[in-house]
C-alpha cells in the first residue's frame, strides 16, 4: 500500500512526525513489520508557483488567440499573456511568477509576447508535472481554492512536498491498509496521540429516516449497515487538494463523489459505496442473502451469478450490489444523480472472502473486508465521507443515519491472558511486565495486570490477534527483535548422517556424471503435444489451473521433459548432449489418500555424436543404442551395484525395434530404455535420434551389500574364439547363456567380438563371434581346453542347432 507521509502528519499534532523524518520513519516501519519497499517523491519539483486569481480578461491587441489577463496573487495586480482558450474571470490558477522554475528545467522570466509584456504564466496541469489532473489544452483551474490562499505557494497549499512509502502490508494486517491504521502503528514513536480529524458535518436536510430505511435480513454476513442521504450534489472535479492527495498515493481522481469515498477509505480504512437513491426501487435498502439463480450486472459491466452464501444489498425489487465486493451498474452514481445514498457497512471477513473468491473479484473494498475492518469505524467513515461530499459537491446532507449501528463495546469484552513466563520462554529473553504493557497499550490494546501476567483486551480492528502467542509476537515485534539475544542450541548435537535415499542419489549422480552425463533440472509440466497420440492423455495427471495449455499435465516420466532439454541443446548447435535428471514423475492414482502415484526417478537422455570432436579422426560415429546400454550398465553398476538385464519391450513411445525393459538380475522390472519414437523428437522440433533410459529410484536405493573379495586365480588364462551360426530368432543373450550352460566352471569370461549377417551366412541366420576365456586354479593344458571347447560345440549343435561357421 502507498502511504503518504504528509497525509500521516494530519493525524498528529503539528511537527510530531516531522521530528522523526520520512526516511527514519520508513526504517522504523520496516523493523516493526511493515517493510517499506520504496520511498519516493510523488510530485515533480518546481518553485515560484502561487495561487493567482484572474480578475479580468482582455483580447491581445496583436494576436487573436491570446488574451491579456489581470492576475491577483493577493498583493496587487499583474498582467499575464495567456494562450489558453479556457481562461475564466474569477477562477484561480497556478500562477508561475517571474523567476519560477518549472519541471523540465523551464524558467519563467518577464518577457514580451507579440509586443505586450507578460509577468509570468498561468499553468496547465502538465506544466506542473500533474498530467493526470488536466490536459495540456488548457490551463488548470484549481477546484475548491479559497480566497485567503491567493499568493500562497501552490506546493504548500496542495501539500506537494510529500514523500510516499510503498509498504508491503502482510495479509494478516487488514487494519493497516489505511493511513489511520499506519498512524496507530507509529504513534508510539512520537510520544503523541494520533487522532482522527474533525468531521464538521452539517446536517442541513430533512431527517433521512422519513424518506428511507434499511432492513438487515443477513446479520451474520453484515452485522453493521449504515446509510446517509445527500441531496443536490453536483458531480464535478474534486477539490484540488483532494485530487493531489489521491494522486500522491497512486489513485487517479474521478469525480467529487467517487474521490470522497476513496479518500475516506484510504484515510480510515472503511470502504464506502454510493447509490443513486432515485434508482433504488421502494427507496429503501434490504440486506439479504443471494437467491438461487439470482444475477446482477456489476459496475464492470459483467453479469454475475450469485448464491445464498453471498450477502446482497438489494432494493425492493432486486440486488443492487454484492455487499462489500462491488456495486451494481443499475444503481451507479452518474452525472444525472440528484440524491446519493451513501453506504458504510461491516461484512463478515470469512463470508466475504469466500464470495469474492468464488466470483473472482478483487477490489479495494473486498480486500479490506476479507481481512477485517474495524466495525466501529463505520460511523466516522460515513460522516466523514458525507461531509467531504457536501464540501466538494455542494450537497445537502439529510439529518441522521439510517440502519444498524455497530454494537457498543461492553466492559465485559473477552480478554486474553498473557503469561509473562510464557512470553519469556518464547521470546528468549526476560521482558519486564511494564515494558510489555507499554508496547501493547501504545498500539491500542487494553491492558490489565493479573497475578502472573497481563489480561489483554484486543481492539476491534485487530482481527489477527486471537490467542496468547499472537500477543507474544506483538510484544516481541514492538520491543524489537534486535533485543533478542543469540543463544546456541541446547546440548550441541552431533552432525547427522546422510539417509539411505540421499546416499543412493549421490552414488547414482556420481556414476552418471562419470559416464559423461550432465545433471539437468527440467520442468515438471508437459502439454499433450509432446507425446501426441503416442501417450494416452488419461494416463497423465492433469492440472485444474495450469499456467498454459502446454503445461497442462504433470510429467508422466522424466524423459518427457528431459528429452526436450536435449533437443533444445541440439537446436542451439550442440553436437553431443548427454543429460541426466533425478526428479519426480506422476501417474493418476489409485491411492486412498487421493494423491497421484508419484515416484522419484532417474533418467538418462542422449543424442548426437558419440564422442567429442577429435582432430585425429575423420568424425565421431553417432551415439546409438549400445552406447546407451553401456552407459546405463555403468551407471547402474557403479551407482547401485546392479547388473541390469535388458529384454525387449512394448513401450509405445519407444522405437518399435529399439526398446527394452530394464530388469534386475531377479527379473523385477525397474524401468525402460531405448531410442525414442521419432515422432516424439519431432514434437520437440528436432530431427534426431534420441536415446533415453529411465528407472524407478526406489529400486536403486537399497544399500549395496558389503563386497566379499574372491581370490583371483594366478594360473594363466587360455583364450579360444568361436564363430557360431545362429538362427535369427535367437537373441545374442540366449546364445551366450547356452554357451555358459554348456561350459562348466572353467569358463571364466565370455565376450562377444563380432556379429555378422550377410552372404557368407545362410538366409535367416547370423554369425556370432564369441571369445571364451578358460581359467582354473591350476594351469590348464591345451588338450584340456580343446576338450572343453569340443564339448561346448557338440552341446550347442545338439541342443540348439548352432553350427560352427
Amino acid at each position, binding site marked *: 500500500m502507498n502511504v503518504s507521509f504528509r497525509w500521516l502528519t494530519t493525524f498528529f499534532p503539528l511537527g510530531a512526525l516531522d521530528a522523526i523524518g520520512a526516511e527514519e520513519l520508513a526504517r522504523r516501519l520496516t*523493523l516493526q513489520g511493515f517493510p517499506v*519497499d*520504496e520511498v519516493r517523491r510523488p510530485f515533480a519539483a518546481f518553485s515560484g508557483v502561487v495561487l493567482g486569481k484572474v480578475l479580468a480578461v482582455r483580447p491581445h491587441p496583436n494576436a487573436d488567440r491570446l488574451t491579456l489577463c489581470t492576475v491577483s496573487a493577493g498583493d496587487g495586480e499583474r498582467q499575464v499573456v495567456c494562450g489558453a482558450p479556457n481562461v475564466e474571470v474569477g477562477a484561480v490558477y497556478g500562477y508561475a511568477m517571474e523567476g519560477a522554475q518549472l519541471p523540465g528545467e523551464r524558467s519563467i522570466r518577464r518577457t514580451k509576447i507579440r509586443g505586450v509584456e507578460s509577468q509570468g504564466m498561468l499553468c496547465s496541469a502538465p506544466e506542473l508535472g500533474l498530467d493526470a489532473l488536466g490536459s495540456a489544452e488548457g490551463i488548470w483551474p484549481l477546484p475548491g481554492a479559497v480566497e485567503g490562499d491567493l499568493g500562497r505557494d501552490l506546493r504548500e497549499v496542495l501539500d506537494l512536498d510529500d514523500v510516499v512509502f510503498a509498504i508491503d502490508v*502482510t495479509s*494478516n494486517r487488514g487494519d493497516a491498509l489505511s493511513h489511520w491504521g499506519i498512524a496507530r502503528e507509529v504513534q508510539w514513536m512520537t510520544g503523541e496521540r494520533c487522532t482522527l480529524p474533525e468531521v464538521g458535518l452539517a446536517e442541513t436536510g430533512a431527517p433521512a429516516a422519513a424518506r428511507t430505511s434499511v432492513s438487515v435480513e443477513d446479520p451474520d454476513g453484515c452485522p453493521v449497515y449504515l446509510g446517509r442521504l445527500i441531496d443536490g450534489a453536483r458531480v464535478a472535479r474534486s477539490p484540488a487538494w483532494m485530487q493531489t492527495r489521491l494522486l500522491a498515493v497512486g489513485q487517479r481522481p474521478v469525480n467529487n463523489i467517487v474521490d470522497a469515498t476513496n479518500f475516506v477509505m484510504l484515510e480510515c480504512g472503511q470502504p464506502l459505496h454510493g447509490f443513486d437513491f432515485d434508482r433504488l426501487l421502494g427507496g429503501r435498502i434490504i440486506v439479504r442473502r443471494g437467491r438461487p439463480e439470482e444475477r446482477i450486472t456489476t459496475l464492470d459491466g459483467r453479469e454475475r451469478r450469485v448464491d445464498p452464501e453471498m450477502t446482497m444489498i438489494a432494493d425492493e425489487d432486486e440486488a443492487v450490489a454484492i455487499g462489500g465486493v462491488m456495486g451494481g451498474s443499475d444503481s451507479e452514481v452518474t452525472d444525472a444523480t440528484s440524491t446519493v445514498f451513501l453506504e458504510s457497512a461491516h461484512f463478515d471477513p470469512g463470508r466475504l*472472502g469466500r464470495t469474492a*473468491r468464488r466470483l473472482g473479484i478483487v477490489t479495494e473494498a473486498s480486500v479490506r473486508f476479507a*481481512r477485517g475492518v474495524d466495525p466501529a469505524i463505520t460511523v466516522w467513515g460515513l460522516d466523514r465521507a458525507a461531509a467531504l461530499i457536501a464540501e466538494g459537491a455542494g450537497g445537502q446532507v439529510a439529518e441522521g443515519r439510517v440502519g444498524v449501528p455497530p454494537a457498543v463495546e461492553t466492559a465485559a469484552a473477552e480478554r486474553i491472558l498473557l503469561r509473562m513466563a510464557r512470553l519469556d*520462554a*518464547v521470546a*528468549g529473553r526476560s521482558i519486564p511486565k511494564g515494558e510489555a504493557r507499554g508496547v501493547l497499550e501504545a498500539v491500542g490494546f487494553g491492558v490489565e495486570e493479573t497475578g502472573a501476567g497481563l489480561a489483554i483486551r484486543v481492539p476491534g480492528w485487530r482481527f489477527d490477534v486471537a490467542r496468547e*502467542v499472537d500477543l507474544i*509476537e506483538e510484544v*516481541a*515485534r514492538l520491543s524489537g*527483535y534486535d533485543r*533478542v539475544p*543469540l*543463544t546456541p542450541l*541446547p546440548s550441541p*548435537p552431533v*552432525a*547427522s548422517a*546422510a*539417509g539411505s535415499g*540421499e546416499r543412493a542419489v549421490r552414488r547414482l*549422480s556420481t556414476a552418471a*556424471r*562419470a559416464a*559423461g*552425463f*550432465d*545433471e*539437468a*533440472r*527440467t*520442468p*515438471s*509440466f508437459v502439454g499433450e503435444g509432446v507425446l501426441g497420440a503416442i501417450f494416452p492423455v488419461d494416463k497423465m495427471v*492433469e*492440472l*485444474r*489451473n*495450469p*499456467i498454459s495449455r502446454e*503445461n497442462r499435465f*504433470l510429467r508422466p516420466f522424466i524423459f518427457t521433459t528431459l528429452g526436450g*532439454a536435449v533437443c*533444445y*541443446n541440439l537446436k542451439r548447435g*550442440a553436437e553431443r*548432449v548427454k543429460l*541426466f535428471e533425478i526428479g*519426480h514423475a*506422476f501417474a493418476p492414482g489409485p491411492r486412498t489418500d*487421493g*494423491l497421484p502415484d508419484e515416484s522419484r526417478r532417474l533418467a538418462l537422455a542422449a543424442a548426437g555424436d558419440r564422442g*567429442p570432436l577429435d*582432430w*585425429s579422426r575423420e568424425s565421431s560415429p553417432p551415439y546409438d543404442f549400445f552406447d546407451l546400454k553401456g552407459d546405463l550398465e555403468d551407471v547402474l553398476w557403479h551407482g547401485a551395484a546392479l547388473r541390469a538385464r535388458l529384454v525387449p519391450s512394448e513401450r509405445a513411445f519407444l522405437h518399435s525395434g529399439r526398446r527394452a525393459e530394464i530388469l534386475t538380475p531377479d527379473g523385477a522390472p525397474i524401468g525402460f530404455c531405448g531410442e525414442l519414437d521419432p515422432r516424439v523428437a519431432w514434437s520437440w522440433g528436432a530431427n534426431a535420434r534420441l536415446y533415453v533410459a529411465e528407472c524407478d529410484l526406489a529400486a536403486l536405493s537399497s544399500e549395496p551389500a558389503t563386497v566379499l573379495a574372491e581370490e583371483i586365480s594366478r594360473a594363466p588364462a587360455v583364450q579360444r574364439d568361436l564363430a557360431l551360426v545362429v538362427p535369427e530368432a535367437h537373441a545374442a543373450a540366449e546364445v551366450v547363456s547356452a554357451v555358459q550352460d554348456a561350459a562348466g566352471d572353467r569358463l571364466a569370461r565370455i565376450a562377444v567380438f563380432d556379429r555378422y549377417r550377410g552372404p557368407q551366412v545362410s538366409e535367416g541366420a547370423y554369425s556370432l563371434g564369441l571369445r571364451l576365456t578358460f581359467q582354473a586354479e591350476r594351469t590348464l593344458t591345451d588338450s584340456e581346453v580343446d576338450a572343453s571347447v569340443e564339448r561346448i560345440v557338440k552341446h550347442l549343435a545338439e541342443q540348439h542347432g548352432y553350427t560352427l561357421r
Partner: protein
Amino acid sequence: MMVELRDRLENLRRAVERDLEAAAGPTEVEAIRVRALGRKGSLTGEAKAIGALAPEERPAAGELVNRIKGEIEAAIEARERTLAETQLAARLEAERLDVTLPGRRRGQGTRHPITIVTDELIEIFRRMGFEVATGPEAETTWHNFEALNIPPGHPAREEMDTLYISDEVVLRTHTSPVQIRVMEERDPPVRIVCPGRVFRSDTPDASHSPYFHQIEGLWVDEGISLAHLKWALTEFVHRYFGPQIDVRFRPSYFPFTEPSAELDMGCLFCRGAGCRVCKGTGWMELLGCGMVHPAVLEAVGTDSERYTGFAWGLGVDRIAMLKHGVGDIRLFFENDVRFLHQFAVA
C-alpha cells in the same frame, strides 16, 4: 722381442680406436670387433703367438695382450653406448608431438548449480544436527494448508497462487508440508531440513518460475525460543556467506509461525552501502522464519505447551542466483549445456 710386441699391440689399439671413431653404426662397430677380437682377429693372432716366445717372456707378454684386449673391449663398448644414445635421441626427436593440440577428453558430466547450492546448504545444517527429510510434490490441501494453520479462505492461501489437481490435492506451494509429514510420524525432538521442488502458478520471467526449489528447516524440542532461532540462522549465514555478513531479523507474517520474521542479510554486492540489487536499502531478504505456531503443533497432536520450535524456509534458486551471478531463474530449467558446463568444480 718384448719391445716389438708392445709396439705392435699399441699400434693395433690405436688403429681400432681410429676405426671406432669413424664407425657410423652398430654394424661397423661389430666388424671392427671381429677384425680385432674375432677368432681370426689380429689380437687373437698375437695371443696365439705368445706360445712361440721364450718361457720367461711369456708371462709378461700374456699380461700385455690381456691389457690391450681389455682396453679395446672398453673402447668398443663406449662407442656402442654413444651410438645407441644418438640413435635413441634421433628416434625421440622424430616422434616429437605438438603438445598444444587438444587432448581426447572423456567428458565427465557436471552437477546442476541448484544441486551444488542445495548440497552446500544441507551440509551446513547437517553439521548443526539436522537430518534430511523429503515428501511428495503433489500434496493434500490438509498438509499444504490446513495443518499449517492456513484454513480455507485464509488470505495467505490466495496469495500462494496454488496449482490445483483437485479440490483436495495441490502441487505443494512450499516445502513446509514435509514438517507435517515428519511430525505426524514422530514425537519431538525433531530436527529436519527438507529440500525440494515447489510450485506456484507464476508466469515465468527473469525472477519467477512456476517451479523452483526450497529448503525448509524445523527444530522442535522443549525449551526452544526465538533466541535459538536467531543463533541458528545467524550461524548459518555466517558459515555460508562469511562471518562478516550483517544479519537482521525483521517482523513479518506467516500463518504457520508466530512470532514470524524475515531474515535480511547485508547486501553481498555493496556491503550495505546501498546499490541497485538491494534497491538502495543495503539489505537483502534471505529467508522467512519464526517460532512454530502452536496451532501447527496441535494439528499433528504435539503438546504445544510442552514443546516449542522454530522453522524457516529459504529459496535455493535465489541463493544460487546471488552466489553465482545468474541473472535469470529460467536458465536453471533451460539446461543449456554451455551454462551447465561452467559448474565443473564447485
